[in-house]
């Protein structure tokens, strides 16, 4: 069926800020969908509140709205843009829910907007637990015994009937949030109460526990006439019980015979046909490990994290094809873009093994529980491709960038047999390392399997890796042994450690025996057809298919690896834009990256894509084949920057700012010299290696001081220390990993934090704008509310900032991007830090100023000057709009995580509020972040002494808005003394009703809780904050944020009076 001619203008809904369970994969899917629609001549209107995404660019969509994703806002945009259709299934659960809301309210019908892709009825059948179950029963597809409950007694009764343990799954939530496994009634009541609260419709599914079964997924795609294929199936190494987003996943399935494979495949097709899904769909199964019994776990009638993974694992662009299907095409009419010969109705077949490992945030939340459950916790993931599973696993491990490169990286050698058996019961992110140690200690594979339920095939593969470790330790490093170790993708440094050689010796041996990586293609068809735009992965046991091309100019762009807190989708935005800019300048472009969720690893972004770990050795393998003329590292975050030295050793010139200048910005002494030469002040400080040195510096400066490691991103390990004792504690944490770089100790200054991203061509500097943080210093810039143009600083401060920026960029010989953070104390401006590279604010500031920073930086790197590019150097004129970037957190997903803000970044994403005036922008920003007040007009305030003064002001303003204020003892007293009506509530340890009872009573809108400076050790405060977060109550931990919120509420225009701003017109 050809394209539907009635579809001329489509509204695409994005997924909003990045949160756990809904991340960069939707930027990838949405971007692909928009490009696919535009390819067909359709006008695309895009709405997404997330400014860090590639999809919210005017080159991707025709009209771009970075607005809160609420029905009222969408209605305004639909009224303004008058699209004829709406595509809701590219924006994850958030997009789908919103599309449903608009369809159900009748708004779409009354505005003649057609829901494309999938109907509201289909969405309901797949998403509503009850309807889904009934539908499955009707077509004879088994589900685990379950009941949808809307209250706790029903849940308790049903669980008693089917027996514990039971699984709880709230309806309409992200990443399984609020779900879990309950082993007894007490756990059931706790999880169920939370789940009911988090569910949009107040429903939770109580289900027979099928934990321990094999978890198998199928990605299915269907067109409107009913043709359907499975793009890929995947098997989770972690059996049912761990959210698939937190599981190690392999594609294709490894332990299923054709009987099981086809049984589940037919079931998946049966389901998608019954649901009449048009587009992509994910079906998750639990398969009994010793019979053919299976259960359908869930169906996602949209693109998903799994569909992004399946797309990258196979080369089949699911979102692109789904968008074409939405326009009316059938699968046999859509060309397979990789082969150019086959069609989208050809099922991909793999001739390699894909391994995905989640990137979990426990390095950021050291107090959090590491256990993995049905509630997703991963912020991102890495994918690797190899000809064998062992190699795939090894490559994926080192792609994580978590100081792990083998199955010995987490050390469990101290555990004896009994302790290991106990430890094997724990399901966490270190389980495969524990399994490896258990194998080393002689625990039988069967016993490991009995405890973990991990399939013996995977356990044996881990055993093969531990056997190789042992051989490397005990046997001479012969050519045969080295070849076999490389076939399993042991990196040189691990081989060196195990065999007692140096890494150089191992490298030399490889040269001697000619053991080099070769590259194979991902081509969707196992080489059956020639491929025109394939991508590559390395192996050590076969011929090389990647041919060195010899264009005039060839550039290597290094990606930013897995999404983690502190290094998110912004860096993918930068990498992709840099790649496009190089391509426009006539370069052949090569990307190396390992993140399956991103746009940069789409098959048609760079001329060549290498799906590889971002370690020096893996990059060198690519360099050996491609011999690029240069590499850019300034766009790929810290991941890419860290590769600078290695690239130079390989003889690859670094394009843009030179490595020694990057070092100068990080090296305390060199940098102090630059500041001194240029007369730029900074907080006094010193460089230390040991706790003793740190204490000495701290005492010289006087507490409080800021302690942080150098060469990190996202403020990792950064802390404000108030005492010698805290210094010791923080230094111990920082030094847990071997430090190659010194640690910085600075005097903590309190003031306004300001930030610029600028482009420098070596002579001139272009500063698109100055951003001001709402939270004062001490809160990491990534967690601060950031306002452009800076609203409260004087022109003099702005001029000083522009001047300092110019001087610093010159002194550091910056060619390309530079990010500088300042503190303004009164009219005095101090430097906090300088990063001669892209930053997380680059996409945001590009969009709100309309200045394509990455593109300009790339052209500058190539040799153009700012003036040649048509820009007048210096600080640019301020925009007519106020644009506010609001951090978004995923605290509810990470049990036990400390939520209070500090110098270490904790947010997972951001959203934008843009409007003509500050207050509307602020309101939009809070709305976009999901802060929707008021509900009950009741708040709790409990603040540390230093904040009492400001708490009075905030309390008074909330009171004026009609809020009832509850406060703990001393805060209540301070408020009452100042004439603010506050009701005193007891602390947790005191008699009921306490502050905790109040929160659990579900009638509180907001908790303002500022923890004691430094690390709050009060169990009470921690408990209050966690309980608030886990019951879905907004919780604010900085007075500045509280003030901003009350300001926004005072000016809360009614949601339907907001004016959407088309970014494409800026």
């Amino acid at each position: 069926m050809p394209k539907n001619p009635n579809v001329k203008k489509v509204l695409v809904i994005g997924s909003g800020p990045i949160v756990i369970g809904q991340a960069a994969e939707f930027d990838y899917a949405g971007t692909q969908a928009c490009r696919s629609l535009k390819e067909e001549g359709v006008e695309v209107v895009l709405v997404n509140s997330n400014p860090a995404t590639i999809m919210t660019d005017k080159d991707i969509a025709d009209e771009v709205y970075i607005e809160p994703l609420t029905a009222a806002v969408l209605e305004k945009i639909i009224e303004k843009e008058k699209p004829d259709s709406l595509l809701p299934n590219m924006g994850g659960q958030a997009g789908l829910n919103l599309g449903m809301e608009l369809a159900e309210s009748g708004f779409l019908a009354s505005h003649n907007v057609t829901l494309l892709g999938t109907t509201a009825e289909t969405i309901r059948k797949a998403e509503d637990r009850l309807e889904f179950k009934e539908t499955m029963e009707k077509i004879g597809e088994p589900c685990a015994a379950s009941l949808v409950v809307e209250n706790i007694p029903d849940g308790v009764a049903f669980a008693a009937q089917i027996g514990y343990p039971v699984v709880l799954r709230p309806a309409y939530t992200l990443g399984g949030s609020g779900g879990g496994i309950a082993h007894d009634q007490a756990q059931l009541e706790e999880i169920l109460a939370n789940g009911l609260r988090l569910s949009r419709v107040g429903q939770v599914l109580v289900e027979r526990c099928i934990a321990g079964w094999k978890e198998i997924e199928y990605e299915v795609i269907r067109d409107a006439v009913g043709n359907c294929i499975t793009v890929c199936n995947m098997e989770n190494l972690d059996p049912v019980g761990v959210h698939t987003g937190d599981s190690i996943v392999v594609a294709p399935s490894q332990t299923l015979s054709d009987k099981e494979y086809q049984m589940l495949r037919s079931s998946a097709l049966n389901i998608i046909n019954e649901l009449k899904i048009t587009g992509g769909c994910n079906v998750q199964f639990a398969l009994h490990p010793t019979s053919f019994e299976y259960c359908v776990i869930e169906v996602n009638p949209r693109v998903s994290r799994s569909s992004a993974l399946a797309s990258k694992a196979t080369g089949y662009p699911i979102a692109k094809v789904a968008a074409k299907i939405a326009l009316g095409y059938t699968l046999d009419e859509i060309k397979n873009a990789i082969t150019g010969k086959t069609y989208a109705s050809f099922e991909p077949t793999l001739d390699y093994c894909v391994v995905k490992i989640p990137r979990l945030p426990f390095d950021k939340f050291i107090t959090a529980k590491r256990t993995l459950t049905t509630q997703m916790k991963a912020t991102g993931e890495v994918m690797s491709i190899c000809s064998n599973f062992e190699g795939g696993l090894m490559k994926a491990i080192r792609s994580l960038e978590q100081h792990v490169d083998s199955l010995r990286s987490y050390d469990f050698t101290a555990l004896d047999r009994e302790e290991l058996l106990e430890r094997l019961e724990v399901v966490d992110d270190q389980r495969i390392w524990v399994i490896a140690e258990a194998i080393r200690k002689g625990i039988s594979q069967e016993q490991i399997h009995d405890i973990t339920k991990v399939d013996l095939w995977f356990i044996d593969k881990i055993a093969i890796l531990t056997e190789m470790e042992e051989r490397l330790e005990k046997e001479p490093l012969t050519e045969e042994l080295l070849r076999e170790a490389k076939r399993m993708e042991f990196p040189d440094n691990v081989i060196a450690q195990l065999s007692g050689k140096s890494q150089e010796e191992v490298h030399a041996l490889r040269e001697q025996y000619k053991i080099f990586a070769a590259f194979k293609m991902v081509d969707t068809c196992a080489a059956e057809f020639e491929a025109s735009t394939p991508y590559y992965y390395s192996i050590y046991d076969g011929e090389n298919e990647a041919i060195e091309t010899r264009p005039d100019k060839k550039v290597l762009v290094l990606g930013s690896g897995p999404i983690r807190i502190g290094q998110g989708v912004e860096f993918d935005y930068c990498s992709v834009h840099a790649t496009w800019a190089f391509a426009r300048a006539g370069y052949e472009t090569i990307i190396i990256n390992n993140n399956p969720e991103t746009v940069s690893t789409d098959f048609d972004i760079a001329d060549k894509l290498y799906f590889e770990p971002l370690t020096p050795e893996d990059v060198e393998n690519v360099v050996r084949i491609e011999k690029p003329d240069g590499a850019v590292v300034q766009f790929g975050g810290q991941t890419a920057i860290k590769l600078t030295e290695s690239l130079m050793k390989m003889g690859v010139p670094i394009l843009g700012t030179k490595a020694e200048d990057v070092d100068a910005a990080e090296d305390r002494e060199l940098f102090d010299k630059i500041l001194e030469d240029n007369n730029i002040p900074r907080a006094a400080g010193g460089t230390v290696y040991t706790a003793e040195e740190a204490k000495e510096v701290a005492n010289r400066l006087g507490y409080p001081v800021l302690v942080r490691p150098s060469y990190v991103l996202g403020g990792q390990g950064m802390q404000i220390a108030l005492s010698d004792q805290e210094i010791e504690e923080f230094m111990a944490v920082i030094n847990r990993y071997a430090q190659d770089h010194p640690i910085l100790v600075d005097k903590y200054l309190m003031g306004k934090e300001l930030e610029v991203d600028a482009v420098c061509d070596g002579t001139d500097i272009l500063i698109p704008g100055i951003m001001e943080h709402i939270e004062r210093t001490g809160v990491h810039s990534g967690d601060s509310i950031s306002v452009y143009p800076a609203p409260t600083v004087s022109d003099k401060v702005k001029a000083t900032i522009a001047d300092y920026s110019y001087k610093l960029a010159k002194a550091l010989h910056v060619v390309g991007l530079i990010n500088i953070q300042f503190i303004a104390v009164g009219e005095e401006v101090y430097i906090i830090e300088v990063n001669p590279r892209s930053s997380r604010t680059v996409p945001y500031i590009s969009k709100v100023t309309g200045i394509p920073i990455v593109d300009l930086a790339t052209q500058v790197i190539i040799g153009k000057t700012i003036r040649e590019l048509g820009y007048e150097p210096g600080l640019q004129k301020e925009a007519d709009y106020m644009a506010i970037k609001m951090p978004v957190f995923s605290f509810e997903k990470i049990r036990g995580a400390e939520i209070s803000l500090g110098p270490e970044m904790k947010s997972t994403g951001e959203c934008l509020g843009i409007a003509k005036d500050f207050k509307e922008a602020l309101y939009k920003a809070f709305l976009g972040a999901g802060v929707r007040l008021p509900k009950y007009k009741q708040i709790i305030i409990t603040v540390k002494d230093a904040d009492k003064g400001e708490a009075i002001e905030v309390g008074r303003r909330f009171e004026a808005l009609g809020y009832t204020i509850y406060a703990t003892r001393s805060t209540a007293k301070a408020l009452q003394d100042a004439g603010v009506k506050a009701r005193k509530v007891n602390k947790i340890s005191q008699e009921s009703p306490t502050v905790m009872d109040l929160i659990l009573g579900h009638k509180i809108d907001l908790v303002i809780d500022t923890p004691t400076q430094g690390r709050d050790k009060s169990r009470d405060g921690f408990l209050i904050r966690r309980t608030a977060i886990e019951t879905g109550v907004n919780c604010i931990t900085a007075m500045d944020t509280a003030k901003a919120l009350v300001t926004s509420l005072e000016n809360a225009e009614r949601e339907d009076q907001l004016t959407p701003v088309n970014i494409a017109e800026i």
Partner: protein
Amino acid sequence: MKAYLILEDGTVFEGTHFGADREVVSEIVFNTSMAGYLEVLTDPSYAGQAVCMTYPLIGNYGICRADMESKKAWPDALIVRELSRTPSNFRSDCSIQDFLNEQAVPGIAGIDTRALTRILREKGTMNGMITTKEHSFAEVEPQLKAYTTGKVVEKVTCKEAYTLAGATELMKRWDENDLKAKPGTVQELNGTGLKVALMDFGAKENIIRSLVQRGCEVTVYPALTSAKEILEAKPDGIMLSNGPGDPKECTSIIQEIRKLYDSDTPIFAICLGHQLMALATGADTHKMKYGHRGGNHPVKDLATGRVYISSQNHGYVVDTDRLDAAVAVPAFENVNDKTNEGLRYTGKKIFTVQFHPEACPGPQDTGFLFDRFIRMMKEGEVAINA
């Protein structure tokens, strides 16, 4: 032990030997299915060929004998990248290594199967030798060039006719586990009481199973059975099975099929059966460059426009440009290369497909064709287009 794969074009792959220790010369073909190596190994259509699996990890789930598509392994050799050390599946009876030893089939592991596949894709299917001896190419070249699969149907067909009656019989014959697996597309016993004559040119058991599961009584006849004998048994329908080799080698069988065509009996044919019916009615076949072997090929039903993913295993194909519309018209075509995937015979209760609706291995999407056959037996020609 080292083993070598020497191709007709002079390429030599070095790998590790497994399975039976004997030297073989065969036609080298590749199969792109990711699972189902046992079904491939026991598919008689691979007689006379050595199969390279493009999926690199083979043997992961061991050998589940219930999944065998015939009583023995047929390929001359198996070519893989990596064999699993530990098979893991609740039904696994033994490892693939042990199975190939038992079946006296040699194998070679540890070779770059993708490189081999690319050679076959570029140069076309060719002959090769799998050996543990170090031969010079010149030494073996004449042997490689001379090899043909020959009249291989006669080797694979059953020796005498036998009958399987209805679904109850099935219970005895096939493993109970097998029934627990969702029986594919079978919804009802719509074929109860119907007698089907199956011409065994190397039939996969799932063809028989697909009919028996639907309630048909199936009599399996050796390939060289005369049309007369079959027609005298008065079957309600005739199935022409899949099978190995060049269809044009089956000259006497083609003559008998012509007689079956002339009778008014409903006929459904798969793969080789489809090619033989075409040859019997004046059409032509030719050898494809490297054939279709895998479980992912889209075929389009030309009557409805619907596309199905099919299981495929063929190296020859019917020429559609020499088709006489008065005799037969294309019913299915391959979406990728537009080659013929099925024919509908004009004015006859006959339809034939190139692909494998019986799956095993591969997708079960076209299993409904057996129901179409049953409807045709019951209702006549009209059912073909239904």
